[in-house]
């Protein structure tokens, strides 16, 4: 059988967005936006990070790991959540099934990158600088949640 003929016989992916996934995405992305938004705000205004008596935010804030070449990683976190929000809007509103599917894959790629980087930062907090920033942990949990939901949704589309 030729390649073209084999491809014609492959089942077509319908690409449907499930409301349960949508709600999970909204909740997790909003949480991440709030946490990374607050962290970015404290850098922009040079204000003290409110730690609620948990961990040691000032140490994490001042740590060499809190910035990449002088740019606070909180900004990168905020930018990635804004990108996720845009991709999620595209996932739910685009007419073309292929574009919707690509938007879901975009969410998956951004969230997996964020999860890998957050895992590294959480390791640094616990084992290198021995100080915890609860806002960073909340953001790490949110991005990991988005990655898991995105992965499950992609698998569901391929079933």
């Amino acid at each position: 059988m030729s390649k073209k003929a084999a491809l014609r016989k492959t089942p077509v992916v319908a690409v449907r967005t499930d409301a349960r996934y949508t709600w999970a995405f909204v909740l997790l992305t909003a949480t991440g936006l709030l946490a990374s938004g607050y962290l970015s705000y404290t850098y922009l205004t040079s204000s003290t990070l409110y730690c609620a008596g948990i961990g040691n935010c000032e140490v994490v804030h001042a740590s060499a790991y809190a910035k990449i070449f002088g740019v606070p990683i909180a900004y990168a976190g905020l930018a990635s959540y804004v990108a996720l929000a845009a991709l999620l809007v595209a996932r739910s509103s685009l007419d073309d099934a292929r574009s919707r599917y690509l938007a879901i894959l975009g969410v998956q790629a951004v969230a997996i990158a964020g999860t890998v980087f957050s895992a590294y930062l959480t390791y640094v907090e616990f084992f290198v600088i021995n100080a915890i920033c609860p806002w960073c942990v909340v953001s790490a949990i949110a991005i990991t949640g988005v990655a898991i939901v995105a992965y499950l949704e992609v698998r569901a589309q391929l079933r």
Partner: protein
Amino acid sequence: MRHREARRLANYSLTLGLIMGLGLVLLSLYSVNTGASAASTEGIQTERRGMGSPDAKVQMVVYFDFQCGHCATLHSEVEGQLIERYVKTGQVHLEVRPVGFLGEASQRAAEAALAAADQGKFFEFRDSLFRGVRTIGPAALTVDGLKTAANSLGLDMQVFESALISNSKKPELDAIMAEARSSGTRYVPTVLINGQSLVGAQPLQEYVRVIESELAK
């Protein structure tokens, strides 16, 4: 979209995510290892806790606490550039005053820095502690962390440790803190430029603006 193509794209997306994440980790590690720090004091006239010409037109005083995150930011991102631009050229005299506003570890570190100043290594010790706080956190400010920093700078350890144990630098620290309070300094970092107070780690341009306006007078 065909099933096979969809599966292929899904795998690309997973791989792309992993590559981007690992790329960020590598960038971060590279950035930490090549991070910015205050300018060296090489070629600058230094006193106990001051540097630059004492007769300079602009007198700049920095109050800081070793446990304060914004103080570390000011030290690594602003101070070095101001030293290069104004202190080395004789336009600004910089005096650095450690305080212990944020607790026991801050006071211990400040006293240790004053003990290092007795041996002419205040600025080197301060750079070393801030670098330690940025890379290993509070451990840099424990007694062992302070001793490690002092030892690595070649200080006379007997004299240094004796100052730490006897708290012989406490009166000097208390005097600095009393002076800070009397000048209205309640928060760290606070920078006084010819008496004009800038609280918090402000952008470099803000310090430049005030210094330039003082120089123009």
